[in-house]
């Protein structure tokens, strides 16, 4: 193995890790996992750690984890005070979910990080902003010819009609600032559009979004890891059993993808790597695609420049410690320099090949859903979300009776 920090400009002395903020029981447990892994990775390198996380019922806030623990809310005000008090010189944003990421962005915008000379480790703030701001995101991807769902923000009915004509019917109409998505939906014809627009603007809605309709497209995601030296791999890909239009929370995700042939698999993999390199992400991220089931055509839906719920699933499904590796990369290691903890002989620069498939499930008092085991050699669970077991077990049962019920009938 190469000596520590071959490419690291300056080893951080004390790092502040942002936790995920307030948790509800059973929800966002994956961020506890990622934060814990990050702290372990930092401690291994002899870097002092400070953690901010208000939840006492987590692993990362347990005794013996972080060197210093602050049980406060993850808000810019508190974080600034702790930055000063603890004299930290670096910050980890991507291990506490969206709350931590937003907090980091706010601190950067307010000039707090510059003021105290605090470095953000891993993905630079600019790259995070590019993934978070829809306008920047579409622009950046267009620079390298990667397609996103076409979308127009319209302030008048005329603008909306023109946009719909340009995109082509049917379109997805999203009405901004309406409660519970009221008035949003798929519009098939121009007459329907007129009616929907009249209703929307009559209710005093300032703008509507006219978007390309992707209902029925396959929903695919890739977990991508990139180091500061531009080495880039896709650790795992996943497929939602239900297509676009059915909320992920109502569906179930399977790793690896089940209905993609090599051409589609490699197309999306290549686009994922190209996109992540162009955005300049350092560490781990998740990229979501819609894939046309009738031909090789895709849209990038979004990029999450942080550990996410999917990363937790991918880690468990593949055995690849994404959060731990992401923390090492943030410290300046390159992928081939990080030893593989499982084999001990190889490195973190590899893409796991699964000889099983993994699908998340909740632990229930009646035990695991036994019908599922005949179809797959491996198991994984994801302790997440407030979804009811009923919905899940229905999906599971559908899966078990025939591996891919919906798409089989189309074939």
């Amino acid at each position, binding site marked *: 193995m190469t000596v520590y920090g071959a490419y690291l400009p300056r080893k951080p002395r004390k790092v502040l890790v942002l936790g995920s903020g307030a948790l509800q029981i059973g929800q966002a447990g994956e961020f506890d996992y990622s934060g814990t892994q990050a702290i372990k990775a930092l401690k291994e390198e002899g870097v002092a750690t400070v953690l901010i996380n208000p939840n006492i019922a987590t692993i990362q806030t347990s005794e013996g984890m972080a060197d210093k623990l602050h049980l406060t809310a993850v808000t810019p005000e508190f974080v600034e005070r702790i930055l000063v008090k603890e004299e930290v010189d670096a910050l980890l944003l991507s291990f506490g979910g969206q709350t931590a990421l937003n907090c980091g962005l706010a601190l950067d915008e307010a000039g707090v990080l510059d003021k105290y000379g605090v470095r953000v480790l891993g993905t630079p703030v600019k790259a995070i902003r590019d993934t978070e701001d829809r306008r920047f995101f579409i622009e950046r991807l267009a620079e390298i010819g990667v397609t996103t769902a076409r979308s127009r923000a319209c302030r008048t009915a005329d603008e909306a009609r023109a946009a719909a004509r340009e995109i082509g019917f049917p379109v997805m109409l999203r009405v901004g600032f309406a409660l519970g998505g009221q008035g949003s939906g798929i519009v098939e014809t121009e007459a329907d559009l007129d009616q929907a627009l009249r209703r929307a603007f009559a209710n005093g809605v300032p703008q509507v979004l006219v978007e390309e309709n992707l209902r029925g497209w396959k929903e695919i995601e890739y977990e991508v890891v990139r180091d500061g030296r*531009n080495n880039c*791999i896709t650790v795992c890909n996943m497929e939602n059993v239900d297509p676009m239009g059915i909320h992920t929370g109502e569906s179930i995700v399977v790793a690896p993808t089940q209905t993609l*042939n090599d*051409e589609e698999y490699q197309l999306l*993999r290549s686009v994922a790597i190209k996109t992540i390199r162009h955005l300049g992400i350092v560490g781990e991220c998740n990229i979501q695609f819609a894939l046309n089931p009738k031909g090789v055509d895709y849209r990038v839906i979004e990029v999450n420049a942080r550990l996410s719920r999917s990363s937790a699933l991918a880690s468990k499904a593949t055995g690849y410690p994404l959060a731990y590796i992401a923390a090492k990369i943030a410290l300046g290691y390159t992928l*081939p320099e990080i030893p593989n903890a499982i084999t001990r002989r190889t490195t973190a620069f590899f893409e796991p090949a699964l*000889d099983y498939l993994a699908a998340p499930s909740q632990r229930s008092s009646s035990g695991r859903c036994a019908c599922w085991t005949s179809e797959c050699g491996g198991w994984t669970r994801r302790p997440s979300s407030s979804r009811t077991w009923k919905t899940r077990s229905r999906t599971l049962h559908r899966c078990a009776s025939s591996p891919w019920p919906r798409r089989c009938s189309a*074939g």
Partner: protein
Amino acid sequence: MTAAIPMRLLLEDGTEMSGRAFGAAGSVGGEVVFNTAMAGYVEALTDPSYRGQILVLTYPLIGSYGVPAPRAPGSLDGPYESDRVQVQGLVVQSYVDKYSHSAAARSLGTWLEAEGVPGITGIDTRTLTRRLREHGTMKGWVMPANDDAALARNLAKTVDMKEEVFRLVAPDNVIRCGDGPLKVLLVDAGAKDNMVRSLLKRGATVVRAPWHTDLTPLAAECDGIVIGNGPGDPKDLTPLVTQVRSLLSSYCKPVFGICLGHQILALAAGGDTYKLPYGHRGVNQPVQDLITRRCYITSQNHGYAVRQEALPGDWEPWFVNVHDGTSEGIRSRTRPFFSVQFHPEASPGPEDTAFLFDDFMRLVGAMARG
């Protein structure tokens, strides 16, 4: 479909595993090798490097996206990598007959049946793979369970891997395709069609010549040479090695070896090759470029490797495997000769190293212009 027929897989060491038939009926024998790719069975099954071998796919669900319609004779269209299924037999854990994909026209079983290749499903491929990794690749037989083992073994269809296999995978005559400005000679000892497609896409005219023709006049006519992949032990291809050696002594245009071509080039240059215990077959093999230190994930399919320490003095290592340090690429210090063990043309597998074709064509163009 012959789904209900019980089948068995026998290994040289006496291991016996039972499963069910899919695809064609009959018994076959060959070296049992495993591939860890999770997608891309159409590409893998038509890859001539697998000729004579029984292929085990470690991913458990195989067949779910079906197989596209057959391509027209003489066509080079993907995802097919040659005109036929090249493997002797296919071993899977769980064959999916009910496929679903917009590009699919038939099931995997139907295709195998039409091509006369037997398949066996219901095998514990994890145990099988573990055994192959511990003992190294072994000979094996796939046969109907009711047949007498000894008799079926004798009657099983096999391919002679010393000589016959190379004749089977090479085209009969020289084939010319494309009309690009630069002419590239592809030495074919079982080259994948995507190698041709990759060259055509970059503006080349490809002269696809079987390895046993006289290459000297063709090489003189072309602006560069690609030595393609193929099955078997490179040391059994002595005539080609001799031809390439005499070519190298006077040739000054670019020569690019891929997979078997890498081994041939190494042997022709005076290097050595050896058999790996169980080979590299999959689409997730990490390699490192020793010059830039950049790492790539590559598609690989080979059972032999170039001995790194036996390279002649005017050659240097170029790529190494990050997992086990074996040679993945070499290049001449003095002349535009280089080769890689992995498949930059992918298919199946990641396209990370497709830039090697760009580099090669750029070099060919630059040298042709003088």
